[in-house]
């Protein structure tokens, strides 16, 4: 490795742009040092694997990563000195941490796709679970999918007006103590665990009025979770509306409420739709409140105001045997993966759709 330092003054790698070789700049590692260290690190790791007869590839991978960091840092330390070595070390860790975020995302999405895709067939989408026992194939997510759409739909209808009006209040009117209180509690409400929201509706509606579980109760809990998300996102969108537009409207003598309705809201409309879609996506996959409030049924029940309903998350929960405390088997687990994949697709479509909309209709002046 000492050869690298002596080779430095003569522009290593050949193709690299001419390097400053004055005495003012310390010695630097060649451009390929990073890749070189990586190759060395993992090559040694693979060698160790066969030499020491390690069983898994995970160990090899992580050992390689560790060796790579050590090699690069040590090399840099010997050539570039302590400060550069620290810098290289920190940079490597920062790059690694980003990989750490991407890897689970890719792993989760690909794993669920592999497990769930084989289930996808027209039958899977067009049948309910009625009469399908845990020991056979078949059945589908028809009732659960429609049930999820109904409940999330009701939650949206409840939450969005409250969310958007609160955002309007905070942006257009909000001043003083009340506005500060609302802002604070919107933030705090964002942190309310979904199970607590579910328990609240349970104590309030089901215990308080002696009702049986029903779809709309779940929708109310989801709405409670949705409102703060919607307020926060809508607020950001309304703030993006240029103040000149408002002032122009006021200057024409238009009252404030008509200005909001006719100028501010239309300008922010695409942003508000994006915000709303993200809020919907946030709650669509919620399971916890549904356990308490909606229950689960294999039959088709599309009436949100009476009786248990099937929903995608609860179908997964049920098929995994968690609802009744039974054990799951290959058939039920396969169905659970199929339902979970549908749920993920639903949420991803909402998310990606929202972001695309935001991109397409980005307010020009910002």
């Amino acid at each position, binding site marked *: 490795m000492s050869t690298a330092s002596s080779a430095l003054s003569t522009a290593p790698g050949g193709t690299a742009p001419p390097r400053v070789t004055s005495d003012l700049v310390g010695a630097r590692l060649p451009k390929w040092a990073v890749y070189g260290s990586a190759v060395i690190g993992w090559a040694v790791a693979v060698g160790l694997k066969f030499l020491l007869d390690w069983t*898994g590839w*995970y160990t090899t991978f992580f050992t390689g990563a560790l060796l790579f960091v050590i090699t690069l840092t040590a090399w840099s330390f010997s050539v570039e000195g302590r*400060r550069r070595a*620290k*810098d290289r070390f*920190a*940079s490597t860790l*920062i790059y*690694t*941490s*980003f990989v750490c*975020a991407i890897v*689970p*995302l890719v792993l989760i999405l690909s*794993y669920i796709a592999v497990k769930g895709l084989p289930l996808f067939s027209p039958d899977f989408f067009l049948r309910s679970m009625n009469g399908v026992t845990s020991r056979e194939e078949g059945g589908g997510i028809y009732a659960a999918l429609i049930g999820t759409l109904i409940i999330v739909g009701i939650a949206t209808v409840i939450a969005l007006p*409250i969310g958007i*009006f609160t955002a*309007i*209040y*905070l942006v*257009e*009117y*909000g*001043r003083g103590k009340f*506005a500060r209180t609302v*802002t*604070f509690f919107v933030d705090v*409400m*964002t*942190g*309310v*665990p979904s*199970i*607590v929201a579910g328990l*609240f509706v349970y*104590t*309030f509606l089901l*215990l308080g009025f002696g009702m049986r579980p029903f779809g709309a109760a779940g929708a109310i809990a989801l709405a*409670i979770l949705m*409102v703060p998300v919607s307020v926060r996102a809508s607020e*950001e969108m309304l*703030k993006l509306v240029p*103040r000149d537009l*408002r*002032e122009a*409207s006021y200057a024409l*003598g238009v*009252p*404030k*409420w008509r200005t909001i309705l006719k100028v501010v809201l239309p300008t922010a409309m695409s942003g508000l739709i994006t915000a709303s879609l993200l809020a919907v996506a946030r709650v669509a*996959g*919620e*399971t916890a409140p549904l356990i308490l409030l909606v229950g689960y049924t294999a039959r088709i029940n599309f009436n949100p105001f009476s009786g248990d309903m099937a929903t995608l998350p609860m179908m*997964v929960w049920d098929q995994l045997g*968690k*609802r009744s405390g039974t054990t799951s088997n290959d058939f039920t*687990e396969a169905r659970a993966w199929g339902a*979970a994949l549908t*749920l993920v697709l639903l949420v991803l479509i909402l998310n990606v759709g929202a972001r695309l909309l935001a991109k397409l209709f980005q307010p020009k002046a*910002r």
Partner: protein
Amino acid sequence: MAEMTEHDPTNDERFQVAAQGVPGAMPVGTIVPDAGDVVSSGGLTPDGRKAEGGISGNSVRIGDRIFKGLAAGSGGILLVVMAAIAIFLIWKAIPAFTDNSGNIFTTQSWNPQATPPFFGMAAVFFGTVMSSFIALVIGVPIAIGIALFISNYAKRRAATTLGAIVDLLAAVPSLVFGMWGLYFLIPNTQGFQQWLSVYFGWIPIFNNQTATTASQFGKSLLIAGIVLAIMIIPIVSAVCREVFLQVPRETIDAAWALGATKWEMIRTAVLPFGRAGIISAAMLGLGRALGETIAVALVLNSGFVINWHITEPGGDTFASTIALKFGESGGNPVAIAALIAAGLFLFVITLVVNSIARVVIARRKDFTA
């Protein structure tokens, strides 16, 4: 230095600087105006009254009043709901305090259906705090790294996309994290858990006294912590990113001018500025982790004892207990009340944690989280 090009202000920024009336200077602190700014200049005169249709007379004021009432009323609904959550949980949890033969704070076991009912929150509290703590220890450094990567390492154009990808992680339903943890992570980390227990067993928390082969490792607080870590990374890194992007350009340039390496620049300019933001981001992540239900319920084995050995099976959290024990309660009023009491504890804890986080954020109004 080659890195300098990344800090060239874009046209967009120049425009904003001009808009702020600071010729040549980079914006310090917020670019996005906070609520106060927008409102006070939103067509109102400095005393903040006149522009509400003062010219047009009474009919206009009525429309305005109704509209303002609607808007403020929506805000009021939020406050009412928050208050109602607290009131109803306290009210309906009363039987859990009166009919319980154990001490609700120190009892570890969970037998609300026994006669007399005997249960307490000690083990549940321990499991909740421990799993969240593990999640923070693993998740926060990674999240800070991601935030630094996006704010200081990635190219400006790529940063937006990368940020969106990380945000996508937040969109995956917790149920899916749980299933992935149960069916993929646990089987694939048995060897890792055994390795921890064998070679780091001298640190008591990593020691598993019961398992001898890899297949006996599995559901544990450690795995729950890892799954939670993955789940809190998006929110923690999003908040950190916001703060890191707002570090005053002068501070950064000063570090560069002194010949700092990139890491030295980050350590001396970015991290000190972002400290409060990092703390509040961690608190927000903690709030998330404490209340996470389904993912934890899937990767933990219920045990209701305080067990410091995090690689051993067993462990409960408030939220997972509610989800798992609800079906078993069979409408028993004390059992239900016990679960509601667990919910009340959880509500209070998350409320405190989130409030602290928000107060820290509000203290420095340099950014809107």
